[in-house]
């Protein structure tokens, strides 16, 4: 079983600053951590390995200092860590990031791909599912429990607003996980010592045979015009009474608002 976990190095602060000219995140001078959701994905991968055997690889795309995040995952017990790093990757939006990670995973091979449900800096929750789309493989988002892992199938619970779904999928598959799935283990001393010495495999755009027009800022269809906090709108009405009354009332309201 080959398991690849995508991790991201994110700024360790709730106050993410924005460069007003480029409308992108300012990462300079802010200490970095592994995106907390990704630690749950690493733990899930290690638990799959413990139950079903196999090899766990962590993968990230980023500048050379992203190596630190990868070493942290080695100290938790992953088998190897791979860094996709190249000036051509700079400025990637979620589409270009997903493309790059997809090329990386294609290079490495994977039966199960794990991601955190989203990163705490961008909060888009897009990259995981986008990678699956590039592969044309199934994906299951918001996984809260891995029920069963077979040689060619997996059964998981997917968190929903009103409970959970039980979903079965063929392999290969991509999963994004939520916090509820597990408690990430702390590193071990032997792991930390191994992490210090571990070789990190570095791959460039050329190594991945990636198409240059799909990479970095040039390959990013997203143009950020402005970033702002949405205004809280107090303009709401709560209907009470029986369901029949509510429906009639709702239709009236919508007609009055000229919505229907």
């Amino acid at each position, binding site marked *: 079983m080959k398991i690849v976990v995508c991790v991201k190095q994110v700024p360790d602060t709730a106050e993410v600053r924005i460069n007003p000219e480029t409308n992108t995140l300012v990462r300079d001078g802010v200490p970095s951590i592994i995106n907390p959701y990704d630690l749950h994905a690493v733990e899930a991968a290690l638990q799959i390995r413990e139950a079903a055997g196999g090899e766990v690889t962590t993968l990230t795309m980023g500048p050379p200092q992203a190596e630190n995040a990868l070493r942290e995952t080695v100290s938790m017990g992953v088998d190897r860590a791979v860094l996709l790093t190249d000036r051509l990757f700079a400025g990637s939006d979620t589409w270009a990031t997903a493309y790059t990670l997809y090329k990386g995973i294609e290079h490495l091979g994977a039966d199960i791909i794990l991601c955190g449900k989203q990163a705490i800096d961008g909060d888009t929750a897009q990259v995981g599912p986008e990678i699956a789309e590039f592969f044309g493989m199934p994906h299951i988002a918001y996984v809260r429990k891995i029920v069963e892992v077979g040689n060619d199938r997996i059964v998981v619970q997917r968190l929903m607003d009103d409970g959970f779904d039980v979903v079965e999928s063929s392999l290969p598959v991509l999963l994004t996980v939520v916090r509820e799935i597990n408690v990430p283990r*702390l*590193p*071990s*001393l*032997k*792991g*930390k*010592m191994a992490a210090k010495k571990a070789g990190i495999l570095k791959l460039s755009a050329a190594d991945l045979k990636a198409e240059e027009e799909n990479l970095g800022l040039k390959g990013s269809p997203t143009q950020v015009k402005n970033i702002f906090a949405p205004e809280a709108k107090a303009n709401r009405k709560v209907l009470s009474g029986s369901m029949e009354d509510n429906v009639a009332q709702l239709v009236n309201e919508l007609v009055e608002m000229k919505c229907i």
Partner: protein
Amino acid sequence: MDYFLTEEQVMIRDLARQIAEEKIVPVRAELDETGEFPWDVMKTLAQSDLFGLFIPEEYGGLGKGCLELTIAVEELSRACLGVSTTFAANALGTYPILLFGSDEQKKKFLPDIAAGKRLVAFGLTEANAGSDAGGTQTTARLDGNEYVINGTKQWITNGGAAEVYTIIAITDRSKGPRGASAFVIEKGTPGFTFGKKENKMGIRASATTELIFDNCRIPKENLIGKEGMGFVVAMKTLDNSRTGVGSQGVGVAQGALDEAVKFARQRVQFGHPVITFQAVQHMLADMATSIEAARALVYAVSRLVDSGSKDISKESAMAKVFATDMAMRVTTDAVQVMGGSGYMKEYPVEKMMRDAKILQIYEGTNQIQRNVIGQALIKEAARLK
């Protein structure tokens, strides 16, 4: 203060601190209240490899020494002495095997101990043998290829929770102190049961029970060292473990000082945070200074132990007595700085003060430690003549 720790020692400190802050601080009040054994924390410590710190690499450990263990115990003690007592008593119980065990005994027991799969306890104390180990009444009689153990050990840390017990029993009463021997006994051996679990003032997360041996038969190979070496095994074990108790004192005192400083900055009286008052500042200054002095001594003695020095009784007794008397003073002063709040269970310092008291009592009372130091002075003076 910078103690010029190696990169690995800093790594050990940081990991122990992370475990203390993330896994122990959130549960310490509940463990104190219920007196439940901290199995979850032990599991985390096992996963982190900390149980293997001082065990040689050939037995699955990390092959580190006394200073590394001191550093880890200090960090755990900063969060909870009950947990750190459980962890340190495991080392205490392991020393007889590590220092005097045969290759077979080491191969059999150390790998599981290093992995944290089996906890260990050390059994010396009895109802009539506390400071005076010569009063030991538990006996071991050789019968064919087996020893038959009879007697009761009391106040044994990790009793019931541990899987492996190293105990001292009398094999030949006519020989006095040279008639004691050390044995390793596994939980589950017929004739070996546990008595009452003690209800303690402090370190309530740690288990303290009686060990009851009623015609408990163990294989002859479970003798540690030779017959008659029991008290040597016990004394060398305690020489090695005393710095650990000293580091418990440093840790709990540092934890109490941290709380007191935090509180004194927030607590406003007469229109100012109380930390701006000189009376409070001077108390905190004395606390901080005495902690640093104790830490310097405990680290220095740990390094002495690691140097392979043969006679460490005096210095390890000094580290224990100085650091633990200091811990009692500093935790009491932390409660005083925090006033009524410090006395309440909403804050952790009253627990730290209750916990600290045991450090002056167990693994040789501080009066016995002073005897050890005094006797060493007499011996040294006699040598000079």
